[in-house]
């Protein structure tokens, strides 16, 4: 595997907002004193008249955004994923989701890699919270290219969206001409032995795992889900039909996020042996990125291990002893 180009999702986000602002005058950006971290500051510099600093007041920001959406604007809100999903949940539920107002809620610094800020700033429940909220679309890009495309698609999308973003540089996976669509899964690696369903930054880790698995004689099918809601159930079930084994990978709690969504679909449409890679039901801590990924089970090696565990489980089920 060649060394991939690295690019930070937040830089891609800031630049995409600027470029979007140039072609769409209805785009406004609201920030709760984190613009320099989320990179919404780039938009602020380019279009000061369409940038609103609301101060450290996430609840106020969401309800103000609802009012702006009702006046015909396309508001993007800028704060961390942890605050968007927890501090302002009720404002999003009542003021944005219920009336289907087209506010685009961006959640920066999602997952564990929140710049060594620890469990108060890490966000590993946001997918579970927003996925359970009717009318919300949940988008989780896997690289900087997908972030850029998701920003434009989100603005076009009729209705509220939660766009989950990350802080640090990560490998660029997609080509510039990649055709991103909200609600559509994308096969990033073909394989027939086991399906690895990914979202967000677990995509590069899953590809690394697929390389390792190939070395070990297993062909993994990497199915990337940049939209966690609505989930592309058709693509998921088709892949599960083909491989019979599914592993999910997300930088989020194993409760209620991608793993939960996949399990719900498969249980009803195509019961399949599966394993969830993600953060166990616990809070994490502040530490260097690599240490966090290792301790909380989010590396390529953890994905490889999960794949082997479903392969082994399937073999046990299929062995003559199991039917005796």
């Amino acid at each position, binding site marked *: 595997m060649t060394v991939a180009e690295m690019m930070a999702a937040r830089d891609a986000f800031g630049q995409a907002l600027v470029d979007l602002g140039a072609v769409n005058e209805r785009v406004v950006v609201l920030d709760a004193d984190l613009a320099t971290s989320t990179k919404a500051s780039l938009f602020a510099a380019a279009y000061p008249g369409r940038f609103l600093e609301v101060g450290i007041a996430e609840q*106020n920001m969401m*309800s103000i955004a609802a*009012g702006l959406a009702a006046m*015909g604007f396309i508001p993007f809100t800028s704060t961390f994923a942890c605050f968007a999903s927890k501090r302002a949940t009720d404002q999003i539920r*009542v003021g944005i989701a219920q009336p289907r107002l087209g506010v685009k809620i961006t959640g920066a610094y999602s997952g564990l890699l929140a710049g060594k800020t620890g469990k108060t700033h890490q966000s590993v429940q946001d997918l579970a919270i927003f996925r359970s909220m009717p009318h919300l679309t949940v988008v989780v890009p896997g690289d900087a290219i997908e972030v850029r495309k998701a920003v434009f698609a989100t603005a076009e999308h009729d209705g509220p969206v939660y766009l989950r973003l990350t802080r640090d540089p990560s490998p660029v996976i997609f080509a510039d001409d990649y055709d991103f669509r909200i609600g559509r899964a994308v096969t990033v690696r073909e394989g027939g032995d086991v399906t690895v369903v990914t979202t967000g930054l677990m995509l590069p880790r899953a590809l690394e795992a697929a390389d390792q698995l190939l070395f070990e004689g297993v062909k993994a099918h990497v199915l990337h889900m940049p939209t966690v809601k609505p989930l592309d159930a058709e693509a998921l079930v088709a892949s599960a039909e083909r491989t019979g084994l599914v592993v999910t990978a997300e930088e989020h709690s194993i409760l209620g996020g991608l793993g939960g969504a996949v399990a719900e679909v498969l249980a009803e449409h195509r019961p399949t042996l599966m394993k969830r890679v993600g953060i166990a039901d616990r809070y994490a801590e502040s530490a260097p990125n690599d240490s966090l990924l290792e301790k909380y089970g989010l590396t390529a090696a953890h994905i490889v291990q999960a794949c082997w565990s479903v392969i082994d489980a399937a073999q046990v089920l299929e062995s003559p002893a199991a039917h005796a």
Partner: protein
Amino acid sequence: MTGRTDEELRVIANRLRRRTIEMLWGSQAGHPGGSLSAAEIFAVLYFAEMRIDPRRPSWEDRDRFVLSKGHAAPIYYATLMERGYFSQDLLCTYDELDSSLQAHPDVACPGVDMPSGSLGQGLSMAVGLALGARLLGKEGVRVHTLMGDGEQQEGQVWEAAMAGAAYQLDNLTAFIDRNRLQLCGPVDELIPIEPLADKWQAFGWHVVEVDGHAVDEIQAACAEARSVRGRPTVVIAHTVKGKGVSFMEDSVEWHSAPVTAEVRRRALEELAAEEVG
């Protein structure tokens, strides 16, 4: 300016109260007290002050209204119906299955600009609407919101208060229905909100205090708000909870209680007598 006399507005307020009683009797649920206290505010806003066109509820240049104290939905709906946004038939579906007239305001209801029900959010929404109007260059569009006095205990109200002053939103008027009672008792026995006028003044707002049942005072406050430049206005409307129905007045019990057939009969009798008188 309004084309309606004070006497006409008083008659309208009385009619809104009677409609409210009818609706609450029909649904056997809801909040009579906080609806009845706001009758004159609704009468003035919808029949004298606001630039609206019921035939075009989505008219872009209309004034906006946010009922932050969403539990006053009954009198809000009564107002919208009387003003011509929808028929009496629709009003009768209040609180019923599949009705757009939900227990708390929903944007599916003709004339409702923003949803509410979870307290403390309406002023922020109104700030967003007022900012939007200014960004669009719609100088003539004014935004109004009505909050409860108990609602002042919500922290978000004060986030919005800071923002409204910081953005110098002189196209925004917030009303506080100061009826002194909330669900569990007198506001100032739960968590006192006084000195309320001083608080809003300190937050950078133009403050007006009125008798919330005097239509002329409410109208004057609206006119004053329109003339103020560079800051939003808050109108503290001193009211009586349950106003107009003697046994509901100033009573915590009638914040939320079902209107029985007998209650309806007595309440309508009193309200009818008041109109004739």
